[in-house]
């Protein structure tokens, strides 16, 4: 679905523009409206620092790790809430694997504030009209009586996650705020924790694409120490199969790079602003048709999280 791809690139490009509006300090400040909170996915100052070379993917990740290790970053107070804003693009599938099944995509804007107790307040609102995998899917949806696709109200709704329940890892055991803030500052130590949280679900050797997804969400949303953030990038750089899928040019050299890693059925893509060493978006791409996504072509993005700064 090329138009979906174009939409995502557009959103990512908007993120690049927003990322360029930094405060001029070493790292970004908390988002507007959350002045007491720590802004997740901090960004380094774009100027005056060397950028990683547009070489192969592990070198890019290692260069980002080195930049964070050397960053003059002052951590926020230990109990500061962390906040991030994200535009989620997700699939809603009806009757997968069954004749008459169809796939739609919805777009939701979320603001997530996570306290040190790992309680969260999530404000969600619908951000776009639904899209369908094919025109036939829209017809099937209408024939099914236009069931709800799960969109949030345009006016927004707030959800609460109880203390101790919010997790900074999409899959596996819960990783709380304090556990994230206390992650080891060494690649081996941090990788061991991530794999331990996945082990019950994906075994000792989870798909590398899943590990990349876990790490990217951690980097983009968790209150990591500078050392842990650097370690996370080092682990990213060590993942087998990591490669550069695409670059977007800056004035002198690539400003945005897309790292990707494929497993059997899907691929994780991570868009990175090299100037600020921050993650712009995390996406999942379907590599081959699947009965779990009726009428969705191979190569289609079936989910993404685009992080925004305003």
């Amino acid at each position, binding site marked *: 679905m090329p138009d979906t791809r174009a939409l995502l690139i557009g959103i990512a490009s908007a993120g690049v523009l927003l990322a360029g509006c930094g405060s001029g300090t070493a790292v970004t400040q908390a988002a507007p409206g959350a002045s007491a909170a720590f802004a997740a996915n901090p960004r380094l100052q774009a100027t005056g620092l060397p950028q990683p070379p547009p070489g192969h993917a592990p070198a890019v990740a290692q260069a980002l790790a080195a930049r964070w290790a050397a960053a003059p970053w002052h951590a926020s107070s230990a109990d500061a809430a962390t906040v991030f804003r994200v535009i989620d693009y997700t699939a809603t599938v009806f009757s*997968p694997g069954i004749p008459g099944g169809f796939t739609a995509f919805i777009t939701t804007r979320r603001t997530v504030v996570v306290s040190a107790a790992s309680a969260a307040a999530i404000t969600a609102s619908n951000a776009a009209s639904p899209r369908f995998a094919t025109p036939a899917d829209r017809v099937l949806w209408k024939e099914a009586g236009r069931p709800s696709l799960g969109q949030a109200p345009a006016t927004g709704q707030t959800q609460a996650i109880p203390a101790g329940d919010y997790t900074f890892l999409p899959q596996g055991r819960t990783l709380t705020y304090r556990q994230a803030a206390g992650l080891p500052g060494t690649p081996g130590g941090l990788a061991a924790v991530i794999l331990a949280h996945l082990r*019950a679900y994906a075994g000792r050797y989870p798909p590398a694409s899943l590990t990349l997804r876990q790490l990217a969400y951690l980097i983009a*949303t968790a209150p990591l120490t500078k050392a842990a953030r650097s370690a996370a990038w080092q682990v990213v750089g060590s993942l087998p199969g990591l490669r550069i899928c695409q670059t977007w040019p800056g004035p002198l050299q690539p400003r945005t790079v897309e790292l990707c890693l494929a497993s059997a059925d*899907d691929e994780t893509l991570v868009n990175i602003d090299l100037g600020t060493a921050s993650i712009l978006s995390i996406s999942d791409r379907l590599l081959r048709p699947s009965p779990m996504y009726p009428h969705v072509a191979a190569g289609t993005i079936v989910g993404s*999280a685009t992080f925004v700064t305003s």
Partner: protein
Amino acid sequence: MNPSSHRKRRRWLAVAAAAVAVPALTLALSGAAQAGTLGAAHRTSTAVAAVTTPNCPNATLCAYQNSDYNNNGASGTQWNYPYNSTPHLQWVWVGSSANDQFSSLNNNRAWVSYVNKSCPAGNQTRAWAGGAAPKNLQNWSWPNGTNMNDSISAIALGTSSTTQGISSGSC
């Protein structure tokens, strides 16, 4: 927890206790065995359920890629199995990709829905009462004690509030 949550919780437990794991094509377990299985399976207390149960169409089994109905940590795909378009009392294969498996469920139906660890379905089966909405399958396990999160391979929609036999269907 508000009174409504209490009511939902009591209803969930009461019916879930009567609708525990059943091997494919068999129905009955003793009451003692049911209680034991439920206790072992539900290792973590879910007394607090402040997360809003998500939108899920009526008469539909909804499954979510991530815990807390995709509202916690990361959003993800939602798969809906409406009663009107899903075969009844038959196993339906739900894919095999590690990223495509279920981490939370909402059985927004009056009747029992079933999940199985394997396809073809084996005896690692769990039945969810109407209205059951396990928000994190990491807190649940199969009858053999293994974790249920990201391991469901087949689902089936029952046509009764009590457990029934399930045929092989697409498995």
